[in-house]
Structures are given as C-alpha cells and as structure tokens.
C-alpha cells in the first residue's frame, strides 16, 4: 500500500466499516462498480483533509458520498456502469437463489431510474434509517424536499419493482401505510 504509515489509521477504519460504507455507495450509485467508484472518490476527497479530520470520519465520508451522489458525480465516473451483481453472482444463481438475484437486479435497475436526489433520499430514509431532518441535512436540502423526493422515489420504485417481487403491498412510504 502506498504510504501505508500515513494512512494506516484510515486503513484500519475501512477494515472495520468499509463493507457498510460500500453497501450504501452501491445503493446510491446504484450498482457495484459505480458504488466502488463513488466510495473511492469520497475517499480521495477525504484524503485531502485526512490529517486534520477529527471526530467521526464515517459521518464525514458519508456526507461526501451523499453530496456527490446528488450533484452529478457520474460525469467523472471512470467506468461504464454495470449493474451490481456481486462477484460470486454465478455461484449465487447456481445455488437455486435465482429469485433473489432477480430481486437484486430489479432493485438496482429501479434505483437507477430515479433522479439522484430521489435515490439519495430513499437510501437515506430506508437504508440508513435517517429521519427526515437528518436526511435533509445530509443532502443539503429542506425537509419538504426530502418528503417530496422520498414519496416520488418510493412510488417509482413500487411501480418498477413490484412485478418482480411479493412486496407490492408493502412498498408504501414509511408512516403513510
């Protein structure tokens, strides 16, 4: 690893929280490779300030990811998007879990159909379990904008994903079901 000493703390932090961060990034991107790109770019930005960051690096990293997910980071993406199956997708499918693979593909495809803000709002609210106020702070917008984006995003997800799953009755906005 280049300059391992200087970034040893960061490597240790990622060893502990890297999987969780990448999972959020995969949903925000959405997709496996896009998620890796998004997390890598967030890491790049954090590295510029790493020696001076005090407190919660995870919160800092997640804020960068959300901001970049909303403000068009895709323009700088280095790779064409590939929908996000894990590397062991083939083995996964062979293990008679094709319905789960379909579900995952459907979700990634449905997330890709949302606007960046809708996607980020849905991920923040229903993956991170953030409150509307916390989501608004993370995205840099108003609570009403979060409500609107989440509501529209969930509706679009429901329309896109419902035929693939048994979750149709449940894909309603939290608190309004």
């Amino acid at each position, binding site marked *: 690893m280049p300059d391992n000493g200087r970034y040893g703390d960061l490597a240790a932090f*990622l060893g502990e929280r890297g999987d969780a961060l*990448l999972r959020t990034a995969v949903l925000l991107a959405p997709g496996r490779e896009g998620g890796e790109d998004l997390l890598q770019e967030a890491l790049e930005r954090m590295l*510029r300030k790493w020696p001076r960051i005090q407190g919660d690096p995870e919160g800092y990293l997640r804020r960068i990811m959300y901001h970049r997910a909303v403000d068009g980071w895709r323009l700088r993406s280095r790779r064409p998007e590939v929908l996000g199956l894990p590397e062991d997708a083939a083995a996964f499918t062979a293990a008679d879990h094709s319905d789960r693979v379909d579900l995952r593909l459907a979700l990634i495809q449905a997330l890709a159909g949302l606007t960046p803000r809708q996607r980020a709002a849905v991920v923040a609210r*229903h*993956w991170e379990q953030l409150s509307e106020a916390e989501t608004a702070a993370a995205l840099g917008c108003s609570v009403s904008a979060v409500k609107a984006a989440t509501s529209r995003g969930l509706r679009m997800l429901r329309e896109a994903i419902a035929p693939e799953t048994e*979750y149709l009755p449940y894909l309603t906005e939290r608190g309004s079901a």
Partner: protein
Amino acid sequence: MTIFSEGHRDQDPATGISSIMARTVADVRLPAGLLDQAVARNRRRTVRNRVISATSTVAVAAAAAALVFSLPGGVAPSGTGTSAAAHQPRPVPKMQTAAYVLAHANAAQVNSRTMISVARAVDGTMYTDVATQQQRYITGIRASNGQPYFEWSDIIKGGIWTETMVVNQGRVYSVETARGSDAGSISTLLPLQAQSNPVAAFNTALKQGTIKVVGHQELDGRDTILLRVNREATRCEKPGYPAIAKANCSNGEPVSAQPPPDDEVWIDASTYLVVQTKNYKPSPTAVNGTWPSFTTTVGWLPPTPANLANLSSTPPRGYTKIPSTGLVKYLGPIS
C-alpha cells in the same frame, strides 16, 4: 453504536424496501486495493493541481496586467497599485470602471488566447492550449529506461472529455472518457474555468489587495514586471482558486499560523505574457525562515501543427491498453 451501524437498522415491515435493500447488498464486501487506488489518484491529482495552479496564475496575472498599465505614469515602484496611484500628483484616471478594466484585461489576454503555454517546473512540463484548454503533462520523473515515467493528455471535444495516460515504465496506457450532460457540467472539467472571467478576477484582486505591483525587473536579460499575488487572503473562498489552494482551510478561513510569502509572477513588459512564476507551498511551514517553493518558467508557442502535436499523448506501438483502475500498479511507487 451509531445511526449507521447495521444493528440499528430495523426491518420496517411497513415498507419492505429496507429488507430488499439489505438483501441486495448483503454480499457486498470492500475490495482489496480500493484505498490504495484512492491514495494513488489523490496524489496524482495533487501533482496535476500543482501544475495547474502555476498555469492558473498565468490567467490571474494577465488580468493583473491591466492594473500595471492603468497606473498613471507607468508602473508603481512598490506597494499596491491603488495606494501608489493615490500618491500621484496628477488626477487618478477612472481605472476602477468595469469598462476600463475590461478593455485592459482583454488587451492583456489577447496575446495569449491563441497561444500554447509551456510551463516547465522541476517535476514536469505542462502544455496548455489556451483556446481549447487541451493539456498534456509530462512528468520530470524518469523511468528506468530514461523516458518520462508517465504522461497524460486531456481533451474536450464534441462534449466528450478524454484523458489518455501513458506509463512508460510499464509500457501500458489507458483512455478514459466522460460525457457531459450539458455544457455546464462539462465545463467543470476545464482546467482554467475558474479564471474564465478575468474582469471579475481583477476586480476581486484589486478590492482585496491580493495583487501587488512591485515594478520592473530584468529577468534573464528580459524586461519584466514583477507582481506579487497573495493567495492566502483568498484561497479559502470559493469559487476562484484551484482546489489545492484551498488546502488548510477551516470554515472558509486559513488555519496556517504563519502564512507563506506571496507568490511572484514575472510578466514580459512588452507582450504582457507571463514568463516565470514562483509559488510557495502552503505546507510544510517555513524552516529557519525559508519557505519551500518551486519556480515555473513559462514559454509561449504559436499554434503551428508541430506545436499542436505536443498537446497529445500517443501510446507507442507495443504498449498494452489497460483500465485506468489498473494504473495504480504502475504508478504506486511514485504517486
């Protein structure tokens, strides 16, 4: 436990979406090497920004040249242009008007807008076509065979940004592209976009006293005008200065206890084109009163076919094309 901890995430039966998301990413694991790649790319960006920072000074100084020629009686011997002008016995001309500044700023820039700048520093050489902002950077680090360790070129054409990177050490190259959804988005990739409005840059610098005119100075037998540019006063603001200049900022304010000296810019007294810059690094801080610095000499070439060819990086025959993410393997030791 934080709000981001997985154990905190309830499976909300009212939506089901959380459950689907959890299933979707359950097998996602952080791949080995992601941090390595981020570190390598961050350093590569630092190298690039450092050179761009030097060339950006060119544009700022070109705007500052308007100040030089708006002073009564020529160049002030020292101090800021405004204070020097105020002490002249003759009435101060209306140099502050936007039209006046615009005319001189445009006059100062007209000599460069069709040219190719060649900025040479100890760590590499940057070619920049001012008109198209196409760029090529050749590192000063040498590979084992004596060739430059790596080089890259950027071009934006037809709304598509393309970067070609050639690593001679590994005999590999990569080509990356990005398409802007609109002109505004693609413009964020332009290296000189922050200085696209020289009048605004000039007015800002004048108002803040960030550009000072020192006076005439002979440089390698050439009559030049020396300017001093104080980045410290503005580098934490946005927009206006390259990202590297915003290092060591907190809440929009510099955190350096001891600011570095002003950058120095030498402008040719007849063409107004920048011929040399000396930039002081914001960190580490001075040792024994001496700040680390680097000097960049700037040459200007007409856009002849031969000179335009210098703007492209062409992989030699026999080199292997690889994804950009694989470059870290070759750039790691020097990035």
